[in-house]
């Protein structure tokens, strides 16, 4: 059996030359063995191939997986659709209030002409609401609750407070507990009975307030040492009217309560306090003048 591959054994030096001397062509075989032993290895650039290999390896790994990408897109699409669909929008009409109950039983009373938004389905993950206008919040105790407005942010933990964000005014009043007011880079903590007002990007006032609830909620407006023009602005808003006070010279500050559901009473109170008369220009326009009668 062994003899069958005697040339192979001889080539592998398992048997010596003498063992195959009688094989025909022995001389040629010896030369084959000799010269084939001097053949050189083919050119192989080990390092270059390794380098190629490593770069292919990483690009292969980074190869874009379309199916994964597609599923991520679908998941993202569905969740954002749910997110968008579950956003609840509330708008109170001019001259009417609206009460919104949040999923955690927090109560929000929207002042007239205000917009309020929250996400119903994601409420447990994200108790963030958006407000444009004015609203009074009675927040149930629990996790942080955030009110975002165009002007600033209010962060709270179980409390009652009022947020007003109209035009250039941003005002937060805390009636119970404490709230954090974030305006630009400024943070202020309001305790019970404190309020803060910003106008045109500047802090206007930070002071105390003594009532239990905002006047507009109780259908009255309380004023404490405010200018006549400010009182009139409030009236204009409450009743959707236009008031001209350019001819009034009296400049004292007003403190008192005005109803927000009876225009005639409100006008009457103001006329008496400031000694002025008013005339009705049309249904929605009033002009005040100084009362000349001494």
């Amino acid at each position, binding site marked *: 059996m062994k003899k*069958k*591959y*005697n*040339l*192979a*054994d001889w*080539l*592998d030096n398992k048997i010596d030359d003498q063992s195959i001397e009688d094989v025909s*062509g022995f001389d*040629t*075989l010896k*030369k*084959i063995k*000799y*010269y*084939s*032993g*001097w*053949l*050189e*290895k*083919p*050119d*192989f*650039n*080990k390092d270059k*191939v*390794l380098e*190629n*290999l490593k770069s*292919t*390896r990483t690009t*292969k790994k980074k190869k874009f997986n379309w199916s994964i990408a597609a599923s991520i897109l679908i998941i993202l699409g569905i969740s954002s659709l749910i997110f968008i669909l579950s956003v609840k929008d509330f708008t109170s009409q001019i001259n009417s209030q609206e009460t919104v109950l949040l999923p955690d039983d927090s109560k929000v009373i929207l002042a007239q002409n205000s917009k309020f938004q929250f996400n119903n389905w994601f409420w447990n993950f994200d108790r963030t609401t958006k407000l444009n206008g004015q609203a009074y919040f009675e927040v149930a105790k629990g996790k942080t609750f955030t009110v975002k407005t165009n002007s600033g942010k209010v962060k709270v933990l179980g409390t009652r407070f009022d947020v007003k964000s109209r035009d250039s005014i941003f005002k937060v009043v805390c009636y119970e507990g404490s709230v954090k007011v974030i305006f630009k880079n400024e943070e202020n903590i309001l305790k019970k009975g404190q309020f803060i007002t910003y106008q045109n990007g500047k802090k206007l006032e930070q002071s105390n307030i003594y009532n239990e609830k905002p006047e507009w909620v109780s259908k009255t407006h309380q004023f404490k040492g405010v200018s006549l023009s400010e009182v009139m602005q409030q009236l204009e808003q409450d009743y959707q009217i236009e008031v001209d006070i350019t001819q009034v010279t009296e400049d004292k500050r007003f403190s008192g309560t005005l109803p927000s559901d009876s225009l005639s009473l409100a006008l009457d109170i103001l006329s008496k306090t400031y000694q002025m008369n008013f005339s009705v220009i049309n249904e929605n326009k009033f002009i005040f003048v100084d009362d000349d009668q001494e």
Partner: protein
Amino acid sequence: MEKNLADNVCDEKVYERVYNSYSEVINNYFYYKFGNQEMAEESVQEAFIKLWENCKKVPLAKAKSYLYTVANNLSLNRYKHKKVVLKYAKTVPQHTEDKQSPDYKMEEEEFKVKLEKAIQDLSEKQRTAFLLHRIDEKSYKEIAEILNISVKAVEKRMQKALESLREKIEAFK
């Protein structure tokens, strides 16, 4: 634990060690088989990329046979087979001491050319086995591993290769 870590082919250092040990023989094997250097390098790359992708499943001890198996299963149809071009060492010592005839050098060169041509004409199977032994100095056992055949089959191929080479060289005369 430490031993496991050292044996992990996923480890860059271990991987490179495996590469340094086996890349050349895989390259040469493919070169002897098809005579195409580009193809040989591609085979090395593909085999080692497969090893990297499966590095968690392949223990270090199995890396060699895994590489050979993968290499043997590669289908690189896009490459053309070429003639296996071989080189001899620049200075080959004189074969026999007594023959110092002026014709000697010429005869030697002539033989070398004939041998190369005869090798080119061998079958793929015979040529790969023969050259892995002669050039890469692989033992019959190792060649059997690379080609995934038995040692007996390697011996048979070597025997046939030698016989075939002798016939061809003598026919050139």
